[in-house]
């Protein structure tokens, strides 16, 4: 028996050693694709040629509708007919997912929010955009051009898509009186009444929402920007979120799961995107939503083209198509956001959308003056605080770590 055991042990050692050797060999000789994309990240197109026949996009839910959710909501089929570019849509639920998908190099473009754009630019995953090749770019609201999250040194890295706020949504049958503040989900006195039915966005970027709350309710912390948090401010936000954890029923990242949760009563109050609110309302569910008094975080989305795009012509055609006034009006009404193309606000386009409303742009403050310009748009936290504190702020890695801790 013991000689069998001994020979087994030798066999194992041999096998283990062999595997490590093979692994090291593979790593040494294998591709190191991460290092060759630290350059400018791909060539910028100088002219748009013929369509390549296919286009692979990563989209936020409901940004890329082709009639499969609702036969009347479709801005892809026309595009496919006009350009011959067959569109394949991959839905991303969080910015992290989208960044990871872009890194595979298998996609041509992505509708990136501000917390993904900088990471993609810095990683060389996206190419600069020649805005001259996108005629509709001229009509985009000036406030969305040359922003820190979509441009570097005056060079645009994408075409703005639209922007909007994260909302507080609640079940009007269960949550009374109607809340007007984020304390509905952060203040233990209020959140405990919905214990087990509170929901929050399952992404490290949600830490900014906690910081936003503290900005208003704990001014001593001195938070001026919810994405620039030093040690003390960050820890305070994490503690607040850990406290909120007790009341959370579900963290959501899949928009459709959230709709289901609110519809069957598993969730009764929490943060959401306008799309879910509109969808629930259309089904007749008892929900309401608002941008609370403290303000809110939000997203300003940009279409970016991959530095390894296999169908760049189709991608440029798409970027122009998605910023057409009628398409912009359709998307803006369908998702519940402010369009990027100022022309989309004209009544002739708003009238023909999925939720026709000529007052859509006022309601959603498309020009930005009422509240949209004051939203704290998703952006990537970096160590440089951008003020006299210097380089002490928490990076996105710290946020990711912190989020794992919060969920416990």
């Amino acid at each position, binding site marked *: 028996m013991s000689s*069998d055991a001994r*020979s*087994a042990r*030798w*066999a*194992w050692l*041999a*096998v283990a050693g062999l595997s490590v050797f093979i*692994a090291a060999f*593979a*790593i040494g000789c*294998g*591709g190191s*694709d991460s290092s060759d994309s630290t350059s400018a990240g791909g060539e910028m197109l100088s002219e748009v040629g013929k369509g390549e026949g296919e286009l*692979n996009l990563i989209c936020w839910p409901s940004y890329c509708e082709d009639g*499969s*959710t*609702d036969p009347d909501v479709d801005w892809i089929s026309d595009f496919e007919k006009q350009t011959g570019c067959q569109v*394949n849509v*991959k839905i991303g639920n969080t910015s992290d997912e989208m960044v990871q*998908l872009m890194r*595979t190099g*298998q*996609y041509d473009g992505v509708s990136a929010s501000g917390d993904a754009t900088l990471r993609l630019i810095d990683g060389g995953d996206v190419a600069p955009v020649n805005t001259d090749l996108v005629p509709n770019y001229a009509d985009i609201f000036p406030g969305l051009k040359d922003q820190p999250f979509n441009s570097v040194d005056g060079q645009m890295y994408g075409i703005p898509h639209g922007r909007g706020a994260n909302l507080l949504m609640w079940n009007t049958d269960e949550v009374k009186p109607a809340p007007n503040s984020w304390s509905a989900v952060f203040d233990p006195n209020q959140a405990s009444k919905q214990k087990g039915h509170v929901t929050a966005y399952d992404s490290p970027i949600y830490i900014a929402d906690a910081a936003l709350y503290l900005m208003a309710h704990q001014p001593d912390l001195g938070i001026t920007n919810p994405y620039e948090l030093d040690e003390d401010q960050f820890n305070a936000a994490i503690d607040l979120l850990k406290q909120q954890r007790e009341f959370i029923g579900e963290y959501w990242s*899949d928009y*459709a*799961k959230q*709709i*289901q949760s609110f*519809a*069957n009563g598993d969730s009764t109050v929490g943060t959401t995107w306008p799309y879910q609110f509109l969808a629930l309302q259309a089904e007749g569910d008892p929900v309401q939503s608002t941008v609370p008094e403290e303000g809110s975080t939000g997203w300003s989305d940009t279409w970016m083209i991959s530095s390894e795009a296999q169908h760049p012509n189709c991608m440029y055609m798409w970027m122009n198509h998605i910023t057409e006034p009628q398409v912009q009006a359709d998307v803006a009404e369908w998702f519940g956001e402010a369009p990027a193309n100022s022309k989309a606000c004209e009544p002739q386009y708003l009238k023909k959308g999925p939720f026709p409303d000529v007052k859509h742009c006022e309601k959603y403050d498309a020009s930005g003056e009422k509240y949209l310009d004051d939203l704290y748009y998703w952006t990537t936290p970096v160590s440089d605080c951008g003020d006299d504190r210097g380089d002490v702020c928490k990076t996105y890695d710290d946020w990711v770590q912190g989020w794992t801790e919060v969920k416990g």
Partner: protein
Amino acid sequence: MRLTRRNERLLRLASAATLAFIYLPLLVILVYAFSASTTQVWPPDGLTTKWFGEAFNNSGARDAFLLSLEAAAFATTVALILGTLASMAVARYRFFGRETISFLVILPIALPGIVTGVALNTSFTQVLGVELSLFTIVVGHATFCIVVVYNNVVARLRRVSGNFEEASADLGATPWMTFRRVTLPSMRTALVAGGLLAFGLSFDEIIVTTFTAGAGEQTLPIWILTNFSRPSQLPIVNVVAVLVVLISIIPVYLANRLSRDVGAAAGAGGAVAAEGAAMP
């Protein structure tokens, strides 16, 4: 063994309760497949069969089904070849490290699927620069399907003496002829049983597949996972679920009939079924 009437009754009750517990959730899904509404409210508003028609017409579900079939077919083939080779070596020869082989073969299925998935994903994407695709899915599936075939064939080979093969060689047959005329027929049913179980295993797998499937590919389980929460797709998911359950009954039943000998069913079939099906 004789039990008192009371004990026997209790035992029977406990067994029935356990079986009921096992089947109830499946029956619930069956009901939902006929439910008229697009939400999961219980009890359902009304009953209809229209979702079955819509499921067949749904291109996403159809494509996913075909991809699953393809992957399972390839994976089963690889597993059959490799599993048979390994089992023949282990059952018929004595050599240094023989016990290790058994352990090695079982390892992909004994370690949590997420480990296999992350390991393969890292190797493919970070080191080898291989794009995730049908190929990577098949590699993942084949690796843990080997054990299913291996166990079935090894058990069979152990029961059938190696004397026939020796006699064949002594009579002048080449190794290939011996294999074809003597060995293969004796393990044919074990191969089919193992193949069927491997096919089912690959068809249903999701955990490793999540990490080895490219962004554009959806096997049927991945399709289910992506679509179960979309209101317009949910009823179709329920129908697909029922069909998947029905489809899996057939290979299991057949595999069971083929390893009918209770000793085999208990020893090999039981082990095979348990560990073979172990990676969902």
